[in-house]
């Protein structure tokens, strides 16, 4: 190899030392910074032994919090999925004025702190809120009760499915649906047999992320929950209560370990979908 060729080749790759330093730094960073917290959750959860772990999970307040978390997700995720599909359909398959404004507005909840997300519903439905008097007169409790928790969760998980589907459906265009129509399919048939199979992996991906956030939401729910044990605590709130309680430290981590498992499963499924069906997911990731 001539000197010039060697110099050119060296200009295309970093020196080996730099390479190994970067790889080492990345391994260290990910291992220490990201992996250790996960490990800590499980080691602390098992500090009281398996018996203690199961007892913590079997506690009635904890079970109630698990039920409430599942209920909240069961309401919030389908509703936001329905919205996501509808919005993506309107935005991706049609042209209209204000389309990019709509897309920007859909992303709004991402820029809003979860505590502010909770606050806005207090301003609407709280005792001194706009609808406060009307609600008291009809004896309907929204804030500091389950409906408030559901509303807060709906707000913070609002964009997930839409964000996933909009670029995907835009990239897929309208040719297949139009072909189905010319072949005589009705609107619904076209949707179920042409559109849905095309978007199913992106849809699943969006639902997965939406669900993870719905079950894990803390700040917004904290504002709107009454923090009443056994009634209006979701799992993340239960974790906080147990953590702040001196004798319940490992119980807090026990509940946290369930949430960590949820995060872990979400992560695994997310990566699996990206790996197997990456080309059928949104065209532009992370934007």
């Amino acid at each position, binding site marked *: 190899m001539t000197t010039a060729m060697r110099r*050119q080749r060296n200009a*295309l790759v970093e*020196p080996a030392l730099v390479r190994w330093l*970067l790889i080492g730094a990345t391994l260290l960073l990910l291992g220490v910074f990201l992996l250790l917290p996960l490990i800590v959750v499980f080691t602390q959860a098992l500090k009281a032994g398996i018996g203690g772990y199961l007892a913590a999970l079997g506690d009635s307040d904890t079970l109630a919090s698990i039920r409430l978390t599942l209920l909240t997700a069961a309401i919030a995720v389908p509703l936001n999925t329905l919205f996501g599909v509808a*919005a993506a359909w309107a935005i991706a398959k049609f042209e209209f004025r204000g389309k990019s404004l709509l897309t920007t507005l859909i992303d709004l909840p991402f820029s809003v*702190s979860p*505590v502010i997300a909770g606050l806005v519903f207090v301003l609407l439905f709280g005792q001194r809120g706009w609808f406060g008097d009307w609600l008291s007169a009809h004896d309907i409790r929204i804030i500091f009760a389950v409906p408030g928790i559901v509303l807060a969760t709906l707000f913070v998980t609002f964009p997930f499915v839409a964000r996933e589907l909009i670029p995907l459906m835009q990239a897929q*265009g309208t040719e297949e649906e139009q072909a189905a129509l010319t072949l005589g399919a009705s609107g619904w048939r076209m949707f179920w047999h042409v559109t849905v199979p095309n978007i199913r992996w992106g849809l699943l991906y969006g639902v997965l992320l939406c669900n993870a956030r719905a079950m894990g939401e803390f700040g917004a729910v904290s504002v709107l929950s009454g923090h009443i044990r056994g009634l209006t605590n979701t799992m993340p709130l239960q974790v906080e209560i147990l953590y702040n309680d001196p004798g319940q430290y490992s119980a807090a981590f026990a509940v946290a370990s369930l949430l960590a498992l949820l995060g872990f499963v979400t992560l695994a499924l997310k990566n699996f979908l990206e790996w197997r069906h990456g080309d059928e997911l949104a065209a532009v990731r*992370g*934007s």
Partner: protein
Amino acid sequence: MNTVILPRQATVDSATHPQRPDGRARRSRSALPGFGLTLGFSLTYLSLLVLIPLAALFLHAAGLGAAGIVRELNQARVLHALGLSFGGALAATAINTVLGSLVAWTFVRYDFAGKRLLHALIDLPFALPTAVAGIALTTLYAETGWLGAPLAQLGIKVAYTPIGIVLAMVFIGLPFVVRTLEPVLEDAEKQLEEVAATLGASRLQTVAHIILPTVLPALMTGAALAFARAVGEYGSVIFIAGNLQNVSEIAPLLIMIRLDEFNYAGATALAAAMLVMSFAILLVINLLQAWSRRHG
């Protein structure tokens, strides 16, 4: 049937599209059905769930009047909390920009054992519920923790200090930078680098002058996302922060405290201030991005 497959922007020709029973041609922007239904539902849902509540916040804030807002915001505790949240988020975003770039580069350009598994790990802060991250980080970096103990030996206190706050913000912001940068790095044309090499550029010059400008817009998007998340973050930060007034109290916590005191005015003013400042910073980043795209 004389139907034509039309490109996306279709103009309706009543000869090719069936008429409604009342004789008017069906109005649509393309040949596909469902526009009215989906757009109507989307706008209604968006308004009820997002726009009206946010409007309520700003109307409430406006109702305080300029004097009222200034009175609520011009308190040492409030100003400190805002400074801590925004300053911490800026510091964390800067750190994440550097760390995220290095991590993204390593994963895109190099091969090493366990790469697939470790790559999956990057999204952990994104998938992990914030309260879990919060207590895990606190336990880890407390003076009795696995990492906190050696750091304490070096005289560095992390938990219950502003350093802990920035650390938690770095934790949750990292995936945003890495994930936004990776696709762009993957697509970056090696040809440009080869051209630079044949022209005699060193590796460092190539990286700085060819690769960096190409990925700069994506880097800024990732930074913007990480910043927006860090500023408003509650669950991950609240446990590791000391939550002492004027020392380690973040703005979202102060909003909570104001709500607990039934001081709706204070909470509203602070929330509105946070939103306005966040939107302003995001707008600046967007403008910088547009500028860098044009001149990149």
